[in-house]
């Protein structure tokens, strides 16, 4: 741990830690809170953008009147015929050939609905609305009017854009390393790459100065496995699956990797979709008992997914990628980067939770709202490496990073926290 640049670190993920749980609650509270909180944040934006000429109204105030120009703030619900449905699965469970899960169930026929606290209205807005790029759970303000057919004709749409951003004052050269998808169960395929990564991390490649500038390593999920275990359909619902021994073994391997990395650098490990953690977002940190070696090091910790931290003044927000994968399934967004950018614009890390993305039934908060615009915003376990410097309203700059999984690309991302530059480093060893 010697000779590293020092960097102030603050873990801001406490809102994602669940200390008590209550599963008697339903999901409506989360939506209600999301709408209330984001309405509070959106209202001044809408006034600023559109002035006070057009009133902000509730749907129930429209009383079926037509052609009244107004602004409505509400939650989007996208009606999709092929949305995964447990009801359909159950009725097909006894059929022989269940319909394969669709990779993407977005269709031109999908209906866009806006729901405020009490009512719903169908949205209509032609090309510019880009309804195929919107998803259930987004809160937005729309300006337009209702027509006789019961549609709301959207003229303008406004999103939160993730709140204000604090100025960036990072020391020169501090670098953040992001890695995801270690997939230990498949590690026999890329063990050389892992070794190279470790050498590189510790500056053994004659890259000491480079290594010294690296301040932190974030492991963004799917360290144990990167695909679901196969389900066996039966009549029963409780499927107590024997946990395969190889998972246990993979974790002890990981433990030693992490222990050796943590000797060189601060390591934060996030759980991912297929890791041994809870399933609902936010995923809780791994239990210490799984990493007996690494846990002894103060430079090693497991964190929540999503994860928020501040490195000096740089706000870093990221997930293991479930939010992005779910958006790609339910919308016609064509790349992970676009999906990531959208969630930033919408001001919400995981809008599709809880609808199609499992999430804890919060009753008095929605920790996924982005109230402060991050400097680095990443998602793990994407198809390929993609990055962009997003410049939002008021000159907010955010480095967007889609991390590919290491098991597939043997690469990591390095971000310069001062300039927000980002590059990919590959550790692939050409085997003949």
């Amino acid at each position, binding site marked *: 741990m010697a000779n590293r640049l020092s960097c102030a670190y603050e873990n801001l993920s406490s809102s994602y830690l669940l200390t008590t*749980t209550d*599963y*008697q609650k*339903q*999901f*409506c509270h989360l*939506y209600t809170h999301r*709408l209330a909180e984001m309405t509070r944040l959106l209202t001044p934006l809408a006034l600023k953008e559109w002035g006070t000429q057009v009133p902000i109204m509730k749907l*129930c105030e429209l009383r*079926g009147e037509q052609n009244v120009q107004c602004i409505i703030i509400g*939650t989007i*619900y996208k009606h999709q015929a092929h949305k*995964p*449905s*447990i*009801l359909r699965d*159950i*009725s097909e469970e*006894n*059929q*022989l050939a269940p319909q394969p899960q669709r990779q993407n169930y977005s269709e031109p026929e999908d209906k866009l609905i806006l*729901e*405020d*606290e*009490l*009512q*719903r209205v169908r949205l209509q807005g032609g090309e510019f609305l880009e309804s195929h790029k919107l998803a259930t*759970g987004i809160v937005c303000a729309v300006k337009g009017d*209702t027509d006789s057919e*019961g549609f709301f004709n959207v003229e303008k749409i406004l999103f939160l854009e993730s709140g204000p951003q604090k100025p960036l004052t990072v020391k020169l050269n501090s670098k953040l390393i992001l890695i995801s998808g270690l997939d230990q169960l498949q590690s026999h395929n890329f063990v050389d790459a892992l070794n190279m990564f470790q050498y590189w991390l510790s500056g053994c490649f004659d890259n000491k100065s480079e290594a010294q500038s690296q301040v932190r390593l974030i492991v963004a999920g799917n360290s144990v496995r990167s695909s679901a275990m196969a389900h066996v359909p*039966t*009549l*029963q*619902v*409780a499927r*107590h*699956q*024997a*946990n395969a021994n190889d*998972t*246990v073994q993979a*974790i002890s391997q990981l433990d030693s990797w992490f222990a050796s990395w943590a000797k060189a650098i601060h390591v934060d490990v996030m759980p991912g979709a297929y890791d*041994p*953690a*809870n*399933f*609902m977002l936010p995923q*809780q*940190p791994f*239990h*210490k*008992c*799984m990493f007996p070696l690494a846990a002894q090091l103060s430079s090693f*910790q497991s964190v929540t997914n999503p994860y928020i931290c501040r490195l000096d003044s740089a706000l870093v927000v990221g997930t293991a990628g479930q939010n992005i994968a779910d958006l790609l399934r339910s919308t016609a967004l064509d790349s992970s980067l676009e999906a990531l950018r959208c969630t930033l614009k919408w001001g919400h890390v995981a809008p599709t939770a*809880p*609808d*199609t993305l*499992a*999430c804890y*039934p919060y009753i008095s908060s929605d920790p996924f709202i982005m109230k402060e615009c991050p400097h680095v915003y990443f998602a793990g376990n994407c198809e390929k490496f993609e990055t962009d410097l997003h410049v939002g309203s008021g000159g907010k700059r955010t480095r967007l990073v889609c991390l590919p999984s290491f098991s597939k690309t043997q690469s990591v991302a390095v971000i310069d926290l001062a300039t927000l530059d980002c590059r990919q480093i590959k550790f692939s060893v050409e085997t003949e």
Partner: protein
Amino acid sequence: MDAKRKFNGNGMANGHSKKPRTYDDDDDMGGGFESELAAFEAMDDLDQTQLLGEGPEIQQTSERWSRAPPPQLNPAEDRLIFQQLDVENYLGQPLPGMPGAQLGPVPVVRMFGVTMEGNSVCCHVHGFCPYFYIVAPSNFEERHCAELHEALGKKVIADMRSNKDNVQEAVLAVELVQRQNMHGYQGDAKQTYIKITVTLPRFVAAASRLLKTTIIMSSFDFQDCRAFENNIDFDIRFMVDTQVVGCNWIELPPGVWRLRGRNSKPAPESRCQLEVDVAYDQFISHEPEGEWSKVAPLRILSFDIECAGRKGIFPEAKVDPVIQIANMVIRQGETEPFIRNVFTLKECAPIIGSQVLCFAQETQLLDKWAAFVREVDPDILTGYNINNFDVPYLLNRAAHLKVKNFEYLGRIKNIRSVIKEQVLQSKQMGRRENQYVNFEGRVPFDLFFVLLRDYKLRSYTLNAVSYHFLQEQKEDVHHSIITDLQNGDEQTRRRLAMYCLKDAYLPLRLLGKLMAIVNYMEMARVTGVPLESLLTRGQQIKVLSQLLRKAKTRGFIMPSYTSSGSDEQYEGATVIEPKRGYYADPISTLDFASLYPSIMMAHNLCYTTLLLPGAKDKLGLTDDQVERTPANNLFVKAELRRGLLPEILESLLAARKRAKNDLKVEQDPFKRQVLDGRQLALKISANSVYGFTGAQVGKLPCLEISGSVTAYGRTMIELTKNEVESHYTRANGYENDAFVIYGDTDSVMVNFGVKTLERSMELGREAADLVSSKFVRPIKLEFEKVYYPYLLINKKRYAGLYFTKPDKYDKMDCKGIETVRRDNSPLVANLMNSCLQKLLIERDPDGAVDYAKQVIADLLCNRIDISQLVITKELAKTDYAAKQAHVELAAKMKKRDAGTAPKLGDRVPYVICAAAKNTPAYQKAEDPLYVLENSVPIDANYYLEQQLSKPLLRIFEPILGDKAESVLLKGEHTRTRTVVTSKVGGLAGFMTKKASCIGCKSLMPKGYEDRALCPHCEPKMSELYQKELAAKQGLEETFSRLWTECQRCQGSLHEEVICSNRDCPIFYMRQKVRMDLSTQQGRVQRFGLPEW
């Protein structure tokens, strides 16, 4: 005097017969019709209750609601063409210039309909008079007619209890006619009958009774003179004689009709846009063929009401207010309703896309709704169970609140809609008490009745039905919540309104999906009866209508038959003893196409061709002219006389062939629907002809015909078996000796002993042709399908994979196997279904056995989802003689919470729970929710022994033989059992909980009580922790998916899910997953929070 005679409600409106009469209804083709007699009973008295007052005028309030204004018509130059939907009659005053009696009162027929432009029409048809025939006594001559006319007329008048209508003339005409008795062949000579035409329909019965019982003319004795056609409904009589069939098009040519207007005499009586008069012999009734097979843009109103009940009590109209009425109106042929609205009591927040009409007073709400119905002027009223609930409730409520003019819902201004009781008895559906409400000119078409008649379902709740046909669940708001929603604010009432609107919309979608209106309309056209009678009457009337039509053209008349209630039986269809087993080779199936109709055609079986005993010798017929049936009855051959029934059947089958051919070329989807409905209606009608002759308590049973039909059927099945088995032999050069392994009624299953589908199909086709050649035309054996593989369990119980082409199977065909029975738990149906799929589709008998074992093991280890175990029964009455599980449970639940306990008429879901030995089963029933919440152990043995074992053994015995029972029910997999510790009852109160190790379940040693693992298991902490996590992951996923599904279904993200639809498979799951997840979270947390 204007008393309305409803075609089916006739007996009910009856002033002095308040008791409900029993109607019988049976739809089985050969199932022996039970008495339908009461329904045919001649109407004999006037209803005095409907005479007073005249309802309000239609007020046009909305362009959207009202029909388009009718065109200006000039009767002298224009023609009026409309599709008639309802035919009824009433007593009115004669109209000068019209035929028939000129002194009032006279019967007038009223036809209601719609023009192609969508204008409603009421057409009064004048001059048609009721009549009947009696056999003329010998020596009765033309000159005696006048005397009989006068004498009988006087008698009938004198016989009337009162003569409020001032009837002066009872008998209109007495004449001699030459006709033939339909029953029995007596040569071609016609006999002399007296045709007696009377003035009023009720005089038909009176006159024929008087002729039988009293002396009318001193010189003649009519007591032994058989009466003919004196038991035909007047409406049917009219339709037969004027060639009007149900729902056909009526054309009034220029110059023959009169238009009623504001100042015309008589004044308009109806709320229809066009009201006209015409003579019964002046209009054109178009056959529903070609251009005239079209359908007018009928208005169909579907509605649903909500009432605010009190906790635990079924809503009573005298107490509980109607709070909402949702309405949807669609034009037949369109896909979306053009009127969507909801009438609410108290303010309700607006609903975009639907009109919300709020009323402060319930009386206003009801009044405006009735006005809405009159303004919309629907042709068809539908909804779900509106006949028995919504409509009577509204009428009773309006009467209780004294809402003026509410009851004027029909199309005749001065007739109120009233409720009548009706009891329907049927083998298939049991005894059902129905309520019937008249809506002159509008056809009540309750979807619930359609489903009861045409589909066998596990459950007939709207939820279950919409899930079954539309694969959609419906949010179900428990009635205890409805009142709370109503008493909330305008938003909670809006929520209720959304729910109500959906309940009004679903029936329309289902009607469309099932094409019910089109199919029923085609059935009415084919059989010639009014649309409404198809839902309220049995099969007999359809055959009767056709028989009368045919007989009339040939000069036959039908004797009236009084049921003797004899139990004379004839032998039923034959069944070739099944050679049980699992056949892995293809089994070809040969079917007789329309077997019973073709037998009747081939052998000329009819009332008119039957030779009664002795008739052969009397008529001097030779053996060549006569055919002796296997049942030893004699019928004359077609060369001598073609029977009426064969002719009816021929035209039905020919029409079906035409419809099928048209269907092949038709492109327009709506017309295709019509044609498909038509060919189906024709098929069903052809089959019901046989049933008509066999109906013991029917209009005209003739066991000689029905007995001969089945006898022919039996010999044909036998003959087929012999032919096939003697021709397809190794000796004749075929691969193997063929065996008929099973045969039933009209099909024969042959095992040709070949291995490929192609070959079995080839042989099947060949054999069908070979055997067909031995039979009289049009009897034809057809090769239809191959079962491959085929599991033959017993008579009428089999399953097979159904192939009509060699490359891919069409479906899995199961007969008589527990897949839909309502009194079983879903577990049985699902297990049977899965096992059969494995057996037949995957051809994996071992897999099927393993699967069954797995499910049994799951059952014994309490791993089956509770929704699979729920049995549902309707709480029909509480005082069953024998103790019944669901009744006991309902009583138990009432003690726990009277508010949510099931009420009379509710369906009670229950599961059977474990209890002490020898506890009777009826005490073991428990509410599934209670079971979930208190972890009450399930009686797995009950489910295994009472529910699963029999059906399972049945399908596995052909495969496993005698050892089936020991393999399935007694094997290794039954040894492990999980015992659940209940939180209630028994010893639960005495137990204390002690911490045990999650890893090895041993009791924790001292000092370790608050830890997850004992010292021994501690080294494996990571592994054991992961195991618990994995279980939690699964539960978390299920939790999320279930509760978000409900949120989507209820159509709101921000509102709590309050649905209590117990028919939904999710209902119990989502409750269980909550508990399981909490429990699992507790286990995980014993390892400590993941803190760093």
